[in-house]
Protein backbone atom coordinates (compact mmCIF):
# COMPACT_ATOMS: atom_id res chain seq x y z
CA UNK A 1 0.00 0.00 0.00
CA UNK A 2 1.84 3.06 -1.20
CA UNK A 3 0.71 6.42 0.00
CA UNK A 4 1.05 8.54 -3.09
CA UNK A 5 -1.37 10.90 -4.68
CA UNK A 6 -3.00 8.78 -7.30
CA UNK A 7 -5.18 10.23 -9.99
CA UNK A 8 -8.35 8.43 -10.91
CA UNK A 9 -8.38 6.81 -14.33
CA UNK A 10 -11.10 4.26 -13.85
CA UNK A 11 -14.03 4.13 -16.18
CA UNK A 12 -17.38 2.68 -15.11
CA UNK A 13 -19.91 1.28 -17.55
CA UNK A 14 -23.40 0.33 -16.51
CA UNK A 15 -25.29 -1.95 -18.88
CA UNK A 16 -28.96 -2.88 -18.55
CA UNK A 17 -28.68 -2.69 -14.78
CA UNK A 18 -31.83 -3.69 -12.89
CA UNK A 19 -32.36 -4.11 -9.18
CA UNK A 20 -35.18 -5.64 -7.14
CA UNK A 21 -35.75 -5.81 -3.42
CA UNK A 22 -37.78 -8.95 -3.06
CA UNK A 23 -40.48 -8.55 -5.69
CA UNK A 24 -40.28 -4.75 -5.72
CA UNK A 25 -38.34 -3.34 -8.67
CA UNK A 26 -36.04 -0.44 -7.78
CA UNK A 27 -34.11 0.07 -11.02
CA UNK A 28 -35.04 -0.94 -14.57
CA UNK A 29 -32.40 -1.53 -17.22
CA UNK A 30 -30.21 1.49 -16.60
CA UNK A 31 -27.44 2.24 -19.10
CA UNK A 32 -24.84 4.87 -18.44
CA UNK A 33 -21.12 5.52 -18.20
CA UNK A 34 -19.06 7.36 -15.59
CA UNK A 35 -15.92 9.06 -16.86
CA UNK A 36 -12.71 9.58 -14.94
CA UNK A 37 -12.50 12.82 -12.92
CA UNK A 38 -15.95 14.09 -13.64
CA UNK A 39 -18.72 15.00 -11.26
CA UNK A 40 -21.79 13.12 -12.33
CA UNK A 41 -24.90 14.54 -10.70
CA UNK A 42 -27.89 12.28 -10.20
CA UNK A 43 -31.24 13.92 -9.64
CA UNK A 44 -34.80 12.72 -9.37
CA UNK A 45 -37.72 12.68 -6.96
CA UNK A 46 -37.97 10.35 -3.97
CA UNK A 47 -38.26 6.65 -4.85
CA UNK A 48 -36.73 7.28 -8.26
CA UNK A 49 -33.94 4.76 -7.72
CA UNK A 50 -31.11 7.30 -7.28
CA UNK A 51 -29.81 5.83 -4.07
CA UNK A 52 -30.26 2.24 -5.25
CA UNK A 53 -28.19 3.13 -8.27
CA UNK A 54 -25.50 4.77 -6.19
CA UNK A 55 -25.32 1.86 -3.77
CA UNK A 56 -25.14 -0.56 -6.70
CA UNK A 57 -21.83 1.05 -7.59
CA UNK A 58 -20.08 -0.03 -4.40
CA UNK A 59 -22.21 -3.12 -3.77
CA UNK A 60 -23.79 -1.71 -0.62
CA UNK A 61 -27.07 -2.97 -2.05
CA UNK A 62 -25.91 -6.47 -1.28
CA UNK A 63 -26.35 -5.80 2.43
CA UNK A 64 -30.10 -5.75 1.91
CA UNK A 65 -31.14 -9.40 2.36
CA UNK A 66 -33.70 -9.55 -0.47
CA UNK A 67 -31.49 -7.80 -3.06
CA UNK A 68 -31.51 -9.18 -6.62
CA UNK A 69 -29.93 -7.72 -9.71
CA UNK A 70 -29.56 -8.20 -13.46
CA UNK A 71 -27.26 -6.61 -16.02
CA UNK A 72 -23.64 -5.64 -15.67
CA UNK A 73 -21.54 -2.94 -14.09
CA UNK A 74 -17.90 -2.89 -15.16
CA UNK A 75 -14.92 -1.10 -13.71
CA UNK A 76 -12.27 -0.77 -16.42
CA UNK A 77 -13.93 -3.62 -18.29
CA UNK A 78 -14.02 -6.01 -15.33
CA UNK A 79 -17.35 -7.07 -13.87
CA UNK A 80 -17.86 -5.31 -10.53
CA UNK A 81 -19.98 -8.13 -9.13
CA UNK A 82 -18.05 -11.13 -10.47
CA UNK A 83 -14.40 -10.22 -10.83
CA UNK A 84 -13.99 -8.34 -7.57
CA UNK A 85 -14.32 -9.04 -3.91
CA UNK A 86 -16.99 -6.80 -2.38
CA UNK A 87 -14.50 -5.36 0.10
CA UNK A 88 -12.11 -4.39 -2.70
CA UNK A 89 -14.93 -2.70 -4.56
CA UNK A 90 -15.85 -0.64 -1.51
CA UNK A 91 -12.23 0.18 -1.00
CA UNK A 92 -11.83 1.55 -4.50
CA UNK A 93 -15.24 3.16 -4.63
CA UNK A 94 -15.82 5.12 -1.44
CA UNK A 95 -19.09 6.45 -0.16
CA UNK A 96 -20.30 9.43 1.86
CA UNK A 97 -23.76 9.06 3.39
CA UNK A 98 -26.66 11.46 3.52
CA UNK A 99 -26.28 12.15 7.23
CA UNK A 100 -22.95 12.77 8.90
CA UNK A 101 -22.28 9.38 10.46
CA UNK A 102 -19.02 9.51 12.35
CA UNK A 103 -18.39 6.43 14.46
CA UNK A 104 -18.24 7.27 18.18
CA UNK A 105 -14.44 7.24 18.10
CA UNK A 106 -11.89 10.04 17.99
CA UNK A 107 -11.42 12.15 14.88
CA UNK A 108 -8.17 10.38 14.12
CA UNK A 109 -9.65 6.92 14.60
CA UNK A 110 -12.48 7.79 12.24
CA UNK A 111 -10.11 8.86 9.51
CA UNK A 112 -7.85 5.86 9.85
CA UNK A 113 -10.66 3.32 10.23
CA UNK A 114 -10.46 2.05 6.63
CA UNK A 115 -6.64 1.96 6.28
CA UNK A 116 -6.17 0.27 9.65
CA UNK A 117 -8.60 -2.47 8.73
CA UNK A 118 -6.62 -2.92 5.52
CA UNK A 119 -3.60 -3.69 7.64
CA UNK A 120 -1.89 -0.30 7.63
CA UNK A 121 -0.19 -0.05 11.01
CA UNK A 122 2.77 2.24 10.42
CA UNK A 123 2.31 5.31 12.57
CA UNK A 124 3.97 7.80 10.28
CA UNK A 125 1.96 6.65 7.29
CA UNK A 126 -1.27 6.79 9.24
CA UNK A 127 -0.40 10.28 10.39
CA UNK A 128 0.44 11.41 6.91
CA UNK A 129 -2.76 9.87 5.63
CA UNK A 130 -4.79 11.59 8.34
CA UNK A 131 -3.36 14.99 7.53
CA UNK A 132 -3.68 14.60 3.77
CA UNK A 133 -7.28 13.34 3.97
CA UNK A 134 -8.33 16.05 6.38
CA UNK A 135 -6.69 18.69 4.17
CA UNK A 136 -8.41 17.33 1.12
CA UNK A 137 -11.72 17.49 2.95
CA UNK A 138 -10.94 21.09 4.07
CA UNK A 139 -11.07 20.10 7.73
CA UNK A 140 -7.39 20.09 8.67
CA UNK A 141 -7.19 23.64 9.97
CA UNK A 142 -10.24 23.19 12.17
CA UNK A 143 -9.38 19.74 13.47
CA UNK A 144 -5.59 19.53 13.67
CA UNK A 145 -5.43 20.52 17.32
CA UNK A 146 -8.03 18.05 18.50
CA UNK A 147 -7.45 14.90 16.52
CA UNK A 148 -7.92 12.77 19.60
CA UNK A 149 -11.16 14.36 20.71
CA UNK A 150 -14.39 12.46 20.01
CA UNK A 151 -15.66 13.02 16.50
CA UNK A 152 -19.09 13.75 17.97
CA UNK A 153 -17.77 17.06 19.34
CA UNK A 154 -17.54 18.47 15.80
CA UNK A 155 -20.40 20.46 14.30
CA UNK A 156 -22.69 18.83 11.74
CA UNK A 157 -20.90 20.34 8.76
CA UNK A 158 -17.50 19.43 10.19
CA UNK A 159 -18.73 15.89 10.84
CA UNK A 160 -19.78 15.53 7.23
CA UNK A 161 -16.36 16.74 6.06
CA UNK A 162 -14.81 14.26 8.49
CA UNK A 163 -16.84 11.55 6.78
CA UNK A 164 -15.45 12.73 3.45
CA UNK A 165 -11.92 12.63 4.87
CA UNK A 166 -12.59 9.15 6.21
CA UNK A 167 -13.60 8.01 2.75
CA UNK A 168 -10.62 9.71 1.11
CA UNK A 169 -8.23 8.07 3.57
CA UNK A 170 -8.84 4.80 1.78
CA UNK A 171 -7.47 6.43 -1.36
CA UNK A 172 -10.44 5.51 -3.50
CA UNK A 173 -10.68 6.42 -7.16
CA UNK A 174 -14.36 7.08 -7.15
CA UNK A 175 -16.31 8.76 -4.39
CA UNK A 176 -20.06 8.37 -4.16
CA UNK A 177 -21.99 11.12 -2.39
CA UNK A 178 -25.52 10.29 -1.27
CA UNK A 179 -27.24 13.64 -0.70
CA UNK A 180 -24.29 14.74 1.40
CA UNK A 181 -25.77 18.11 2.32
CA UNK A 182 -29.30 17.11 3.22
CA UNK A 183 -28.77 17.74 6.91
CA UNK A 184 -26.56 20.82 6.64
CA UNK A 185 -27.04 24.55 6.78
CA UNK A 186 -26.22 26.71 3.70
CA UNK A 187 -22.72 27.68 4.86
CA UNK A 188 -21.70 24.11 5.60
CA UNK A 189 -23.26 23.09 2.30
CA UNK A 190 -21.13 25.61 0.45
CA UNK A 191 -18.01 24.25 2.15
CA UNK A 192 -18.85 20.66 1.24
CA UNK A 193 -19.58 21.72 -2.35
CA UNK A 194 -16.24 23.53 -2.56
CA UNK A 195 -14.56 20.41 -1.30
CA UNK A 196 -16.21 18.32 -3.97
CA UNK A 197 -15.12 20.65 -6.74
CA UNK A 198 -11.55 20.56 -5.44
CA UNK A 199 -11.63 16.78 -5.29
CA UNK A 200 -12.53 16.62 -8.95
CA UNK A 201 -8.92 17.12 -9.98
CA UNK A 202 -8.07 13.69 -8.62
CA UNK A 203 -11.26 11.75 -8.03
CA UNK A 204 -14.30 10.71 -9.96
CA UNK A 205 -17.40 11.82 -8.14
CA UNK A 206 -20.98 10.62 -8.34
CA UNK A 207 -23.33 12.93 -6.50
CA UNK A 208 -26.91 12.02 -5.70
CA UNK A 209 -28.85 15.08 -4.67
CA UNK A 210 -32.39 16.20 -4.05
CA UNK A 211 -31.30 19.74 -4.65
CA UNK A 212 -31.36 20.42 -8.39
CA UNK A 213 -29.54 23.70 -7.88
CA UNK A 214 -26.70 21.87 -6.20
CA UNK A 215 -26.48 19.50 -9.16
CA UNK A 216 -26.39 22.51 -11.47
CA UNK A 217 -23.68 24.20 -9.43
CA UNK A 218 -21.18 21.37 -9.18
CA UNK A 219 -21.79 18.63 -11.75
CA UNK A 220 -20.26 18.22 -15.20
CA UNK A 221 -23.02 15.94 -16.35
CA UNK A 222 -26.42 15.20 -14.85
CA UNK A 223 -28.56 12.07 -14.97
CA UNK A 224 -32.27 12.32 -14.28
CA UNK A 225 -33.97 9.26 -12.75
CA UNK A 226 -37.69 8.70 -12.48
CA UNK A 227 -39.43 5.63 -11.04
CA UNK A 228 -36.39 3.43 -11.42
CA UNK A 229 -35.59 4.49 -14.94
CA UNK A 230 -32.84 6.69 -16.32
CA UNK A 231 -34.79 9.31 -18.24
CA UNK A 232 -31.97 11.44 -19.52
CA UNK A 233 -28.22 11.90 -19.19
CA UNK A 234 -26.43 14.89 -20.61
CA UNK A 235 -24.14 17.83 -19.94
CA UNK A 236 -25.36 19.91 -17.03
CA UNK A 237 -26.16 22.96 -19.13
CA UNK A 238 -28.15 20.86 -21.58
CA UNK A 239 -30.19 19.20 -18.83
CA UNK A 240 -31.03 22.52 -17.27
CA UNK A 241 -31.59 24.60 -20.39
CA UNK A 242 -32.62 22.31 -23.21
CA UNK A 243 -33.59 18.83 -21.98
CA UNK A 244 -34.85 16.45 -24.62
CA UNK A 245 -37.41 14.73 -22.46
CA UNK A 246 -40.42 16.73 -21.26
CA UNK A 247 -40.35 14.88 -17.91
CA UNK A 248 -36.84 16.19 -17.26
CA UNK A 249 -38.01 19.67 -18.09
CA UNK A 250 -40.94 19.35 -15.69
CA UNK A 251 -38.63 18.23 -12.92
CA UNK A 252 -35.83 20.78 -13.30
CA UNK A 253 -38.27 23.63 -13.62
CA UNK A 254 -39.94 22.47 -10.43
CA UNK A 255 -43.26 21.39 -11.86
CA UNK A 256 -43.09 17.89 -10.34
CA UNK A 257 -41.25 16.10 -7.61
Amino acid sequence: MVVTARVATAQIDVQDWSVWYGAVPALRAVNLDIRPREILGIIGPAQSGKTSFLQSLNRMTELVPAFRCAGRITLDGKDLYRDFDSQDVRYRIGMVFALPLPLPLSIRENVTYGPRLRGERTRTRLEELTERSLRAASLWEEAKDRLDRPAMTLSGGQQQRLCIARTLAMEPEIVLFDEPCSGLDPISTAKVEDTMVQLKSRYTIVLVTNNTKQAARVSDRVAFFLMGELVELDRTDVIFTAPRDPRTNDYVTGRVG
Partner: protein
Amino acid sequence: MDPATRRVQAADRQWRRAELIQRVAFALLFIATLLVALASVLVMGLILIRGAPWLSWEFLTTMPARGMRAGGIFPAIVGTLELIGLTVVFALPMGVAAAIYLTEYARDNWMNRFIRLAIVNLSGVPSVVYGLFGLGLFVIFCRFGTSLLAGALTLAIMTLPVIITASEEALRSVPQSFREVSHSLGASRWQTVRHAVLPFAVPGIMTGTILGISRAAGETAPILFTVAAFYVPRLPHSVFDQAMALPYHLYVLSTQIPNIPQAHRYGTALVLLLLVLSLNVLAVVLRARFRRKRQW
Protein backbone atom coordinates in the same frame (compact mmCIF):
# COMPACT_ATOMS: atom_id res chain seq x y z
CA MET B 1 -86.55 23.84 41.77
CA ASP B 2 -86.58 23.62 38.01
CA PRO B 3 -85.45 20.41 36.31
CA ALA B 4 -82.28 21.97 34.91
CA THR B 5 -80.96 22.88 38.36
CA ARG B 6 -81.88 19.44 39.62
CA ARG B 7 -79.90 17.86 36.82
CA VAL B 8 -76.91 19.99 37.59
CA GLN B 9 -77.11 19.09 41.26
CA ALA B 10 -77.42 15.40 40.46
CA ALA B 11 -74.37 15.56 38.21
CA ASP B 12 -72.49 17.42 40.91
CA ARG B 13 -73.33 14.77 43.50
CA GLN B 14 -72.24 12.06 41.15
CA TRP B 15 -68.95 13.80 40.48
CA ARG B 16 -68.30 14.21 44.17
CA ARG B 17 -68.97 10.54 44.75
CA ALA B 18 -66.58 9.61 41.95
CA GLU B 19 -63.95 11.87 43.48
CA LEU B 20 -64.40 10.26 46.87
CA ILE B 21 -64.07 6.80 45.36
CA GLN B 22 -60.94 7.92 43.60
CA ARG B 23 -59.44 9.21 46.80
CA VAL B 24 -60.13 5.95 48.62
CA ALA B 25 -58.84 3.91 45.68
CA PHE B 26 -55.62 5.90 45.44
CA ALA B 27 -55.05 5.50 49.15
CA LEU B 28 -55.48 1.74 48.82
CA LEU B 29 -53.08 1.62 45.87
CA PHE B 30 -50.56 3.55 47.91
CA ILE B 31 -50.87 1.20 50.86
CA ALA B 32 -50.43 -1.82 48.59
CA THR B 33 -47.31 -0.37 47.03
CA LEU B 34 -45.89 0.60 50.36
CA LEU B 35 -46.56 -2.87 51.73
CA VAL B 36 -44.57 -4.46 48.94
CA ALA B 37 -41.74 -1.96 48.93
CA LEU B 38 -41.45 -1.91 52.70
CA ALA B 39 -41.38 -5.69 52.90
CA SER B 40 -38.16 -5.81 50.92
CA VAL B 41 -36.64 -3.05 53.02
CA LEU B 42 -37.75 -4.90 56.13
CA VAL B 43 -36.13 -8.15 55.02
CA MET B 44 -32.88 -6.42 54.16
CA GLY B 45 -32.87 -4.21 57.21
CA LEU B 46 -33.47 -7.15 59.50
CA ILE B 47 -30.64 -9.15 58.01
CA LEU B 48 -28.41 -6.13 58.27
CA ILE B 49 -29.29 -5.35 61.87
CA ARG B 50 -29.07 -8.90 63.12
CA GLY B 51 -26.18 -9.98 60.94
CA ALA B 52 -23.85 -6.99 61.04
CA PRO B 53 -22.76 -7.38 64.69
CA TRP B 54 -21.68 -10.93 63.91
CA LEU B 55 -19.46 -9.87 61.03
CA SER B 56 -15.80 -9.82 61.86
CA TRP B 57 -12.56 -10.40 60.11
CA GLU B 58 -12.44 -13.77 61.80
CA PHE B 59 -15.91 -14.73 60.62
CA LEU B 60 -14.94 -13.97 57.03
CA THR B 61 -11.52 -15.56 57.01
CA THR B 62 -11.55 -18.67 59.13
CA MET B 63 -12.76 -22.20 58.72
CA PRO B 64 -15.98 -23.35 60.36
CA ALA B 65 -15.49 -24.91 63.76
CA ARG B 66 -17.41 -27.12 66.18
CA GLY B 67 -19.71 -28.69 63.59
CA MET B 68 -20.11 -25.34 61.85
CA ARG B 69 -21.68 -23.83 64.95
CA ALA B 70 -18.77 -21.50 65.37
CA GLY B 71 -15.80 -20.22 63.46
CA GLY B 72 -16.07 -18.57 60.07
CA ILE B 73 -17.46 -19.11 56.62
CA PHE B 74 -14.23 -18.63 54.68
CA PRO B 75 -14.44 -21.78 52.52
CA ALA B 76 -18.02 -20.93 51.52
CA ILE B 77 -17.01 -17.44 50.40
CA VAL B 78 -14.04 -18.75 48.44
CA GLY B 79 -16.15 -21.51 46.91
CA THR B 80 -18.81 -19.08 45.75
CA LEU B 81 -16.23 -16.69 44.27
CA GLU B 82 -14.53 -19.52 42.42
CA LEU B 83 -17.86 -20.77 41.20
CA ILE B 84 -18.80 -17.33 39.89
CA GLY B 85 -15.43 -16.86 38.20
CA LEU B 86 -15.60 -20.20 36.42
CA THR B 87 -19.20 -19.59 35.41
CA VAL B 88 -18.23 -16.33 33.72
CA VAL B 89 -15.34 -18.01 31.96
CA PHE B 90 -17.65 -20.63 30.49
CA ALA B 91 -20.79 -18.63 29.86
CA LEU B 92 -19.54 -15.26 28.65
CA PRO B 93 -17.62 -16.18 25.48
CA MET B 94 -20.20 -18.69 24.42
CA GLY B 95 -23.14 -16.45 25.18
CA VAL B 96 -21.64 -13.47 23.35
CA ALA B 97 -20.70 -15.64 20.37
CA ALA B 98 -24.22 -17.02 20.21
CA ALA B 99 -25.64 -13.50 20.37
CA ILE B 100 -23.30 -12.30 17.62
CA TYR B 101 -24.34 -15.25 15.53
CA LEU B 102 -28.03 -14.55 16.09
CA THR B 103 -27.88 -10.79 15.44
CA GLU B 104 -25.14 -10.42 12.85
CA TYR B 105 -25.01 -13.66 10.90
CA ALA B 106 -28.25 -15.61 11.18
CA ARG B 107 -30.95 -14.92 8.65
CA ASP B 108 -34.52 -14.50 9.70
CA ASN B 109 -35.81 -18.00 9.02
CA TRP B 110 -37.93 -20.50 10.93
CA MET B 111 -34.95 -22.16 12.50
CA ASN B 112 -33.54 -19.00 14.05
CA ARG B 113 -36.98 -17.96 15.19
CA PHE B 114 -37.28 -21.34 16.85
CA ILE B 115 -33.89 -20.92 18.50
CA ARG B 116 -34.87 -17.52 19.83
CA LEU B 117 -38.13 -18.88 21.17
CA ALA B 118 -36.26 -21.73 22.85
CA ILE B 119 -33.87 -19.29 24.52
CA VAL B 120 -36.68 -17.09 25.77
CA ASN B 121 -38.45 -20.08 27.25
CA LEU B 122 -35.32 -21.58 28.73
CA SER B 123 -34.84 -18.53 30.89
CA GLY B 124 -38.06 -19.61 32.60
CA VAL B 125 -37.01 -23.18 33.34
CA PRO B 126 -36.76 -23.75 37.10
CA SER B 127 -33.26 -23.69 38.49
CA VAL B 128 -33.70 -27.08 40.11
CA VAL B 129 -34.25 -28.56 36.65
CA TYR B 130 -30.88 -27.13 35.61
CA GLY B 131 -29.51 -28.82 38.69
CA LEU B 132 -30.93 -32.16 37.57
CA PHE B 133 -29.49 -31.66 34.13
CA GLY B 134 -26.08 -30.78 35.56
CA LEU B 135 -26.16 -33.85 37.75
CA GLY B 136 -27.08 -36.12 34.87
CA LEU B 137 -24.73 -34.63 32.28
CA PHE B 138 -21.69 -33.29 34.09
CA VAL B 139 -21.51 -35.18 37.34
CA ILE B 140 -22.49 -38.60 36.04
CA PHE B 141 -22.24 -38.75 32.27
CA CYS B 142 -19.04 -36.69 31.93
CA ARG B 143 -17.67 -38.18 35.15
CA PHE B 144 -16.66 -34.83 36.62
CA GLY B 145 -18.13 -35.95 39.90
CA THR B 146 -19.47 -33.47 42.42
CA SER B 147 -17.02 -30.69 41.68
CA LEU B 148 -16.49 -27.02 41.07
CA LEU B 149 -16.29 -27.80 37.37
CA ALA B 150 -19.66 -29.56 37.22
CA GLY B 151 -21.29 -26.81 39.27
CA ALA B 152 -19.83 -23.97 37.25
CA LEU B 153 -20.88 -25.61 34.00
CA THR B 154 -24.39 -26.06 35.34
CA LEU B 155 -24.57 -22.42 36.45
CA ALA B 156 -23.08 -21.36 33.11
CA ILE B 157 -25.83 -23.12 31.22
CA MET B 158 -28.42 -21.60 33.48
CA THR B 159 -26.93 -18.16 32.86
CA LEU B 160 -26.48 -18.59 29.10
CA PRO B 161 -30.02 -17.56 28.13
CA VAL B 162 -29.67 -14.40 30.23
CA ILE B 163 -26.33 -13.49 28.66
CA ILE B 164 -27.52 -14.29 25.14
CA THR B 165 -30.67 -12.22 25.54
CA ALA B 166 -28.83 -9.24 27.06
CA SER B 167 -26.04 -9.37 24.49
CA GLU B 168 -28.50 -9.60 21.62
CA GLU B 169 -30.28 -6.55 22.94
CA ALA B 170 -27.01 -4.68 23.32
CA LEU B 171 -25.88 -5.60 19.81
CA ARG B 172 -29.21 -4.61 18.31
CA SER B 173 -29.11 -1.24 20.05
CA VAL B 174 -25.99 -0.31 18.07
CA PRO B 175 -27.33 1.74 15.15
CA GLN B 176 -27.53 -0.03 11.79
CA SER B 177 -25.75 2.95 10.25
CA PHE B 178 -22.51 2.02 12.04
CA ARG B 179 -22.53 -1.28 10.19
CA GLU B 180 -23.24 0.43 6.87
CA VAL B 181 -20.47 2.96 7.39
CA SER B 182 -18.03 0.23 8.29
CA HIS B 183 -18.94 -1.85 5.25
CA SER B 184 -18.67 1.22 3.02
CA LEU B 185 -15.11 1.66 4.27
CA GLY B 186 -14.18 -1.75 2.97
CA ALA B 187 -14.55 -3.66 6.20
CA SER B 188 -15.48 -7.32 6.09
CA ARG B 189 -18.37 -8.67 8.05
CA TRP B 190 -16.24 -9.77 10.98
CA GLN B 191 -14.22 -6.52 10.95
CA THR B 192 -17.48 -4.63 11.08
CA VAL B 193 -18.67 -6.67 14.06
CA ARG B 194 -15.31 -6.41 15.76
CA HIS B 195 -14.66 -2.69 15.27
CA ALA B 196 -17.98 -0.97 14.62
CA VAL B 197 -20.49 -3.00 16.64
CA LEU B 198 -19.00 -4.98 19.49
CA PRO B 199 -17.10 -2.12 21.21
CA PHE B 200 -20.31 -0.15 21.52
CA ALA B 201 -22.27 -3.14 22.81
CA VAL B 202 -19.77 -4.03 25.53
CA PRO B 203 -21.40 -2.01 28.35
CA GLY B 204 -24.76 -3.60 27.66
CA ILE B 205 -23.24 -7.06 27.50
CA MET B 206 -21.41 -6.48 30.75
CA THR B 207 -24.51 -5.24 32.53
CA GLY B 208 -26.47 -8.28 31.40
CA THR B 209 -23.69 -10.65 32.33
CA ILE B 210 -23.28 -9.21 35.81
CA LEU B 211 -27.01 -9.43 36.44
CA GLY B 212 -27.01 -13.04 35.24
CA ILE B 213 -24.04 -13.86 37.41
CA SER B 214 -25.54 -12.21 40.46
CA ARG B 215 -28.50 -14.50 40.07
CA ALA B 216 -26.25 -17.51 39.67
CA ALA B 217 -24.29 -16.50 42.75
CA GLY B 218 -27.37 -16.66 44.93
CA GLU B 219 -28.77 -19.88 43.51
CA THR B 220 -28.76 -22.99 45.62
CA ALA B 221 -30.82 -25.54 43.71
CA PRO B 222 -28.46 -25.97 40.72
CA ILE B 223 -25.42 -26.53 42.93
CA LEU B 224 -27.20 -28.73 45.43
CA PHE B 225 -26.16 -31.93 43.69
CA THR B 226 -23.35 -30.69 41.49
CA VAL B 227 -20.76 -28.97 43.72
CA ALA B 228 -21.97 -28.43 47.14
CA ALA B 229 -20.28 -30.04 50.03
CA PHE B 230 -21.94 -30.04 53.41
CA TYR B 231 -18.57 -29.42 54.95
CA VAL B 232 -15.06 -29.63 53.55
CA PRO B 233 -12.29 -28.84 55.97
CA ARG B 234 -10.04 -27.39 53.25
CA LEU B 235 -10.27 -25.22 50.21
CA PRO B 236 -10.62 -26.88 46.81
CA HIS B 237 -7.30 -27.59 45.12
CA SER B 238 -8.57 -28.10 41.60
CA VAL B 239 -11.75 -27.72 39.63
CA PHE B 240 -12.46 -31.40 40.24
CA ASP B 241 -12.77 -30.87 43.99
CA GLN B 242 -15.96 -30.42 45.90
CA ALA B 243 -16.49 -27.01 47.38
CA MET B 244 -18.66 -25.19 49.84
CA ALA B 245 -20.80 -22.31 48.64
CA LEU B 246 -22.51 -19.48 50.49
CA PRO B 247 -26.14 -20.13 49.52
CA TYR B 248 -25.86 -23.83 50.24
CA HIS B 249 -24.06 -23.08 53.48
CA LEU B 250 -26.90 -20.85 54.60
CA TYR B 251 -29.36 -23.59 53.71
CA VAL B 252 -27.40 -26.11 55.73
CA LEU B 253 -27.06 -23.76 58.69
CA SER B 254 -30.76 -22.98 58.74
CA THR B 255 -32.18 -26.45 58.23
CA GLN B 256 -29.68 -29.09 59.22
CA ILE B 257 -27.87 -27.69 62.20
CA PRO B 258 -29.83 -27.04 65.36
CA ASN B 259 -28.58 -25.12 68.39
CA ILE B 260 -26.56 -22.60 66.51
CA PRO B 261 -26.54 -18.90 67.37
CA GLN B 262 -29.19 -17.21 65.21
CA ALA B 263 -26.70 -14.41 64.55
CA HIS B 264 -24.37 -16.88 62.84
CA ARG B 265 -27.09 -17.60 60.31
CA TYR B 266 -27.93 -13.91 59.92
CA GLY B 267 -24.26 -13.14 59.42
CA THR B 268 -24.02 -15.72 56.65
CA ALA B 269 -27.20 -14.40 55.05
CA LEU B 270 -25.79 -10.88 55.22
CA VAL B 271 -22.56 -11.84 53.48
CA LEU B 272 -24.48 -13.57 50.71
CA LEU B 273 -26.87 -10.67 50.39
CA LEU B 274 -24.03 -8.14 50.25
CA LEU B 275 -22.27 -10.13 47.55
CA VAL B 276 -25.37 -10.39 45.38
CA LEU B 277 -26.45 -6.81 45.99
CA SER B 278 -23.05 -5.37 45.22
CA LEU B 279 -23.09 -7.19 41.88
CA ASN B 280 -26.52 -5.70 41.21
CA VAL B 281 -25.40 -2.23 42.18
CA LEU B 282 -22.36 -2.61 39.93
CA ALA B 283 -24.63 -3.47 37.01
CA VAL B 284 -26.92 -0.52 37.69
CA VAL B 285 -24.02 1.93 38.01
CA LEU B 286 -22.44 0.59 34.84
CA ARG B 287 -25.66 1.00 32.92
CA ALA B 288 -26.20 4.52 34.20
CA ARG B 289 -22.66 5.59 33.33
CA PHE B 290 -22.94 4.07 29.91
CA ARG B 291 -26.23 5.84 29.20
CA ARG B 292 -24.69 9.15 30.21
CA LYS B 293 -21.60 8.68 28.08
CA ARG B 294 -23.41 7.35 25.06
CA GLN B 295 -22.95 9.59 22.08
CA TRP B 296 -25.47 8.35 19.58
